[in-house]
Each structure stands twice: as C-alpha cells, then as structure tokens.
C-alpha cells in the first residue's frame, strides 16, 4: 500500500464517519431550529431534552419490553418511535407552563424583549433535568444495544486491491432513519396547513395574528415538535454511543453551531449546518490531534459566522 493510498483510505474513512455522524447532528439541529428559528428563543435545555429522549428510548427498549417484542435489530428504532410522542407531550407542557410566560406578545414590554428571562429560565430547566436525571437514572453510562453497532460493511477496494473503508451498520441505519424523519418533516412544513402557519408565525408573528393564526399555539407546537425531533436524534445516537444524564451539555453547543451555520430560520439549512459540523469534526482528525477536534469545530464555526453572518441559507434583513 502506497503512501497516497493510505492517505486516501483514511480520508475516505473520516469522510464516511463525518457523513454518518453529520446526519444525526443534522437532525438534532433541525429540532433546535424548530424552536430557535421559529420562536427565536435560546433554549439551553435543548441538549437535556435530547438526553431525556435517549433515556425514554432506553427504558422503552429495556423495561417496556420493546426488545423482547421486536428483538435487538428492530427494537432500538421502535424505541425511538415510542419516545417521540412522549417528548412531544413533554415539550408541549414545558412551553405551556413555563416558556410561554416569558415569550411571545407578553414580553414586548420587558427589557431586551424578554431574552434575559428566557435564557435564565432555560438554564434553570437544564439544571433540573440534568440533576433530576442523575437522581432518576443514575450516573453510569448506558446505551441502547443493538448487534448492528458492532458489525460493519466493507466498501471497496476502490484503488487496486487497497483502499477500502468500513462503515458501521448501526450508524448507517441511524443516518437513514434521520434522513427519513427530516424528509417527513420537510413534507409536513411545506405542504400542510400547520406547516404554513408555523412558517408564517416564524416570519412575522405580529402579522400572523392579524391573519388569524394563533401564534401562541403555533409556538407551542413548534416547541413540542422541536423537542420531539431532537429527542429522536438522541434516541438514534443512543444506539451507537453510550450516554449519561449530563450528555446534553456536549451536544447543545454542536446544535447551536449547526443552526447558526445553516442560517437562523432555515430548517433545511440547520440540517446542512449539523452535517457540516459532523464533517469538520471527523475530517479535522486527519491533520490535528483528536483532543483538538472540538476546538476545530468552534474555530471553523467562528470563521464562517464572521465571514458570512447570515449562515449558508439565511437572508439578511435589517431595517432602521
């Protein structure tokens, strides 16, 4: 195997890893984009919503008997589907009981349009979820185990007898699921009446109320939907990576970076933003020590945002 072939092989391997993990990051980001893009609320608890999704999927799989009914191959994905409505309801209630008190029309008179209150409220919720999670679930690492995650397909050889890459079957499944969820969501947003009202509420909340859209309700559904989507991403991630109650902190930043890169307000942009983060993270290991993997994400993020503040898919709207 020549030097070039070795390089090619590790490049392709990293590229594949980046695409696979990027697809899941993308889904997480889409979930956040539903909340951040539509309501413009910075939700620090989004990572913890994802953590909840992981645990609900985990307990559905182990305690509720999804594993015994569907087996270890299909079971983990069924658990993700089981977790979705649970987290939808959770998000719905969190918005109704807490978030709605510091967002929407009520905040017009508040300092900084209520942003300060929103931030600190979601920080408080994040603290409760993390620590409550530790009490309820314990702090040891768990995962939704599927045999797929410990086997791989070999692709190649691409270059003579060499240069072949291994892709983990579990990750492939998770990525495919992720893409399927996004396609379904995209269809819903662009075609359905609900989707239209969500987009209208995002674009101009005030005008939306004039044309008879219940913005409060649109926000509540967006919040619930965003929670549910990120939670599903969490469930998919849980089939490949072990997790603990504080896992949200690691991902919430990835999510925001992805959403900002994609352009605030663009749902599909958020997916590509998340994908970009996954690729940068994996490809950076080719040239830099693994420890700096996360630093590279942030540096690339800063460079892109400063050069193109509106993100890949955003538009500049500024009025005096």
């Amino acid at each position, binding site marked *: 195997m020549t030097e070039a072939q070795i390089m090619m092989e590790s490049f392709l391997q990293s590229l594949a890893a980046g695409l696979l993990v990027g697809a899941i990051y993308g889904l997480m980001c889409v979930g956040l984009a539903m909340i951040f893009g539509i309501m413009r609320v*910075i939700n620090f608890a989004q990572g913890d919503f994802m953590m909840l999704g992981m645990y609900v999927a985990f307990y559905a799989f182990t305690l509720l008997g999804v594993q015994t009914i569907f087996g270890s191959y299909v079971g983990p994905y069924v658990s993700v589907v089981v977790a979705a409505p649970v987290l939808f309801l959770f998000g719905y209630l969190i918005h109704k009981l807490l978030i709605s008190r510091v967002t929407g029309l009520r905040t017009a008179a508040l300092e900084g349009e*209520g942003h*300060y209150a929103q931030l600190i409220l979601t920080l408080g919720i994040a603290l409760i979820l993390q620590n409550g999670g530790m009490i309820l679930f314990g702090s040891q690492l768990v995962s939704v185990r599927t045999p797929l995650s410990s086997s791989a397909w070999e692709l190649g050889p691409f270059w003579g007898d060499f240069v072949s890459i291994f892709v983990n079957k579990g990750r492939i499944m998770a990525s495919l699921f992720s893409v399927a969820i996004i396609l379904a969501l995209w269809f819903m947003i662009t075609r359905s009446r609900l989707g239209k009202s969500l987009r209208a509420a995002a674009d101009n909340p005030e005008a939306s109320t004039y044309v008879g859209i219940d913005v409060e309700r649109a926000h509540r559904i967006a919040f619930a939907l965003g929670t549910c989507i990120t939670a599903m991403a969490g469930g998919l991630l849980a089939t490949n990576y072990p997790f603990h109650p504080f896992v949200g902190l690691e991902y919430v930043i990835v999510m925001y970076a992805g959403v900002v890169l994609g352009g605030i307000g663009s749902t599909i942009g958020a997916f590509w933003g998340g994908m970009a983060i996954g690729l940068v993270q994996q490809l950076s290991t080719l040239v830099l020590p693994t*420890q700096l993997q996360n*630093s590279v994400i942030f540096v690339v993020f800063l460079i892109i945002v400063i050069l193109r*503040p509106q993100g890949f898919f955003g538009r500049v709207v500024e009025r005096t």
Partner: protein
Amino acid sequence: MAFLKSLVPFFGFVAAYALVAGLVENSYYQLMITLVLVWACFGLSWNMLSGYTGLISFGHASFFGIGAYTTVLGQVYFDISPWILMWVSTAFGALAGLLIGLPTFRLRGHYFALSMLAYPLAMLYVFEWLGYQEVTLPMKRESAWLYMQFEDHRWYTMVAILMLTAIVVITRQVERTRFGMALIAIKQNEAAAEAAGIDTLLWKLRAIALSGAIAGATGSFYAVVLLVVTPASVFGMLVSAQALTVSMFGGVGTVWGPIIGAAFLIPVGEILHAEFGSRIPGIQGVIYGLAIVVIIIAAPEGVFWKVRDLLRGRAASKAIQADEEATAAAGPAAPPKDEPGAFQPACSKRKISGEVILEVRGLSKSFGGLRAVDNVSFTVQRGMILGIIGPNGAGKTTLFNLLNGFLKPDSGEVILKGQNMVGRKPHVICAAGAGRTFQIMRPFARMSITDNVRVGAYVRAKSESEALEFARRAIARVGLADIADRQASALTTKQLRLMELARALASQPEILLLDETLAGLGHSEVNDVVNVIRGLADDGITIVIIEHTMQAMVRLVDHFVVLDHGAVLVDGAPEDVTRDPQVIEAYLGKKWRAYAQG
C-alpha cells in the same frame, strides 16, 4: 458629591458584609463568603458589556480563564507573585476583549451571543491539549503574604471586598458619564446611536476591553483562592453561565443586580450541596434550578427591577394621573393652532438663504435587481423645509439611509456644506451637522426624557454639564420641559416623537432629517408636532422631512421632492406639486388623473 452619595448604600452593604465576614471563623463558610464576592465581580464584568450594550455574551469564561491561567502559569514558571500577576491578568483580559471584540462585533443579536460561546470552548480544549489539565499553585510557606497565601481566610474576603468596591465605583462612573450613555444608546438602537453621533464600534470595544479586564482580574483572584485551576473550572460553559445567572437573576443593567444575584444564589447552591449533596446526589441541582425557574417567572427582569418597580409603582402611577389631568386642562402648550385643512403659506418669518447646505447628485442604490434609489438629485438651501414624499416603497427611507451614511450608494454624491460625505460613517456625518430621527421609535424605556436626549448631546458637548445643558435646551424647544424627568415608558406616541426630535436637536444640527415624524399621530397631535418643526425652522435649522401622507406636509414645507419607484418624479413648490397629474397618478392611480385634469 452626588456621585459619592449614590454609593452610600453600597458602602453600607460592604461594611456590613465585612463585619459579618470578620465574625465567621469556619474556613468553609469563609470560602463561601469570598466566592459570593468573586461571582459578584464576575457578574459585574458581564454586566459591563452585556447589561449596558444589550449584546449578550455567552463566553465570558474566555476572560476569566485567561486571567486564571495567566496567574497560575506565571507563578509556576516565573515565580511571580499574584499581587503582580493580577494586574498582568487584567491587562491580558482587556487585550483578549479587544481581540475577540474586533471580529465578533460584526455580528448582532443571537449571532453575537452564540459566537461568544465558541471562544472559551475552543480555548478549553487547547489548554487541555497543552497538558494543563490541572495546575496547582505552589505553596509558599516563608513569604506567604508576598504570594497572597493567607492562613486566615478572612484576608481573602477583604481583598475581594476591595476588588468589588473598585469595580462598583468604575461601573457607577461609567453609568453616569457619556461612556454609559453611549452603551445604553447602543442597546436601545444601534443605528439610532450611530446617527446620534456615537462611534458605536469604538465604545463597544472600550466596553469589552473593560469587561475583559475585570473578568481577567476576577479569574486571577479565583485561581489564588482555590489554588488549583482546571480548564473546565475556568473556561467551562458553566462559568460563562454563572456570570449570566447571577446578573440576570439579580437584574441586568445595574450594579446591584450581580451583587444581589451572587449573594443569594451562591450560598443557596453551596448550602444545598453541603446539606443534601451527600444523601441524594443531584437534589441540590434540582432545587437550585427550581429556585431559578420560580423566581424568574415571578420577576422576569430580575429581583432588583421587580423590587424597584414594586416600591415605585404606586407613587409613579399616581403622579402620571395627576399629570395627565393637568395637561388636559391646560391644553397643548404649543403656539398658534392651525385649523386642520386650512392652507397656510409655509414661510412665516423664515429666511431661506441662497446657500446650498445639502446637495445630492445622481444618487443610486440597488438591492439585488431592485433599484431602490435611482439617480436622485436635489438641493437643499439653508433655512428651508424640504418635504420628500412618495407612496410606500418609493425609496424614501433608503434615501435617508444613504444621506446619513447607513448605506453606501452605488454611485452619486452627497455634499454637505461643500464636503462629499459618501463613505463616511453615520456618526461622522452627525458630527458634521446632520441629525436624524427614525420611523421606528425605540426609546430607552427606563430612562427619563432628559437622559434619553442627553445621549444625543455628546457628539457636540465637551463635558457632562454641557451635555446636560444641551439636552435641557433641546427638551424645552420641543415643549417637553414640564415632564423632562418622566420615564420614557410612560410617554404617549406624540411625546415620544417629540423626544426623538429633541435627541436629534441635542447634537446641535444645522440640518435635520426627519423620517415620518408625523406617522401614527392623531389630527390635533399632527398640528402640535408641525408647529414644533416650524419653530425649529424659524430658528434657522434646515429641515428635510419624509412623509407618505401629503395633507400635513402641504402646510409645512417650502418645497417638495416627490419620489416614485426610487426616482424623482416632480420637484417643486407645494401648490404646483399637489396639482401635478403625475403625482396624483402615483398616489391614486390612473383613474384619478382624469378627474384631476377635468
């Protein structure tokens, strides 16, 4: 003197705090007492940037961490005392502020907030990779004092009290001078601040440098107190979050906020940790989180403002009521009342000189394929009132944005008093004598009219007292002198419009650009504002005013420029313009043109 007086409550607090601290011998509780002050200082650092400018930073741990690592590494490698390293950390913090601020201030709102998050996290991994996972300060048994290593923990508290005092004095000093006014103006409306003659980038950089310096010093002291530094404990997201938490909990934009927040949250967190942490790990975090959630729902703007509003609430609402009755009885203070619709010649005692104060030559600006302003030329003579009218979307506001420097034209010239202003920043153009108001008002709700207007005065005023004097005069000219101390949040639309006008006036402009000053006003209110504007013109200020309704304008202006689809449609005297078939068509459509001619 007034300044010292305003600090009396703070000195009272500090004295009481020092007294209590002096009585506590238990070193665990003493540490807690010290940490309250540390986080209060850090909160004040955050408040300096984010509280006053409104640019929320999620990344204040950058400065904190740089300060902490400067101090530990400085002592470990060079054996320098923390007494000196604290100042080095302060300088590094300020430098980091400038380096981070320079690129990041290109961003606004959420983009700024989230980008700030990236800096400390990037640094965190770099410090880990460099092998500084855990750095301990070497113990100095012989010359402990020289190395700020006190056996009696109360000394740390005393040092922290000195630090806090210094920071509070600095913050108060900033608050009451043009520095603070500039930051607050940026918070309410950056564009308006720039138009009021404030060099926004410069002031933001000063704020972040000062904020970084304070955070650097605080981080340095934190390292000395805890003796050990890890990347997560100084660069971690929770550190940045702590600054936000104490400030927002206590109240943003006041020195008291971070102090109240730290004094409540830090002990609660620590005590919960000590009491319950060992029995049910995590319960302390849940209770702490719940406390934050409950209080922020009850007081979304923080404890300080809630308490203050409660205390002032009753008194203020009574005063306003009494006031309104008085105004209603007295009627509008403004001079002669015009009958609505009556056609009065615009010039009364006004002299329009031949001197051209503003000349616009061939100005064009496109957005994508849309020519928003298309080859516009006109001249304004000193002393005249020029009305720019046109239907919605005709390019009026874009034209103003080109005139005062928010936008750069694709081609053409803007000549103000003989100088080409194209490419100059808005604050430079303001300093050159062109003031402006905005279609969308954004007053600083908690500030008095006087303070709102004072912001506009700094571009000309050399001292604080002169700024106040300019503000007073401007307020008197628009007729708001009686209510000058009233909070902006209690004003009517008309009063807000007049306040905006006063703010523009405070910069002592020679020419005023007014963007839809009459929008949203009732019939008699329009007359009052028109009279004020006329009064200004009588005093020799040249006025260019945009409106899309012609009615009120006809009675006000000497000359019209009618815009349609970005281009000048007609340019002429009011009588001629109102009869011009092209103008009627642009406004009402073709159908009416026939009527007008018939």
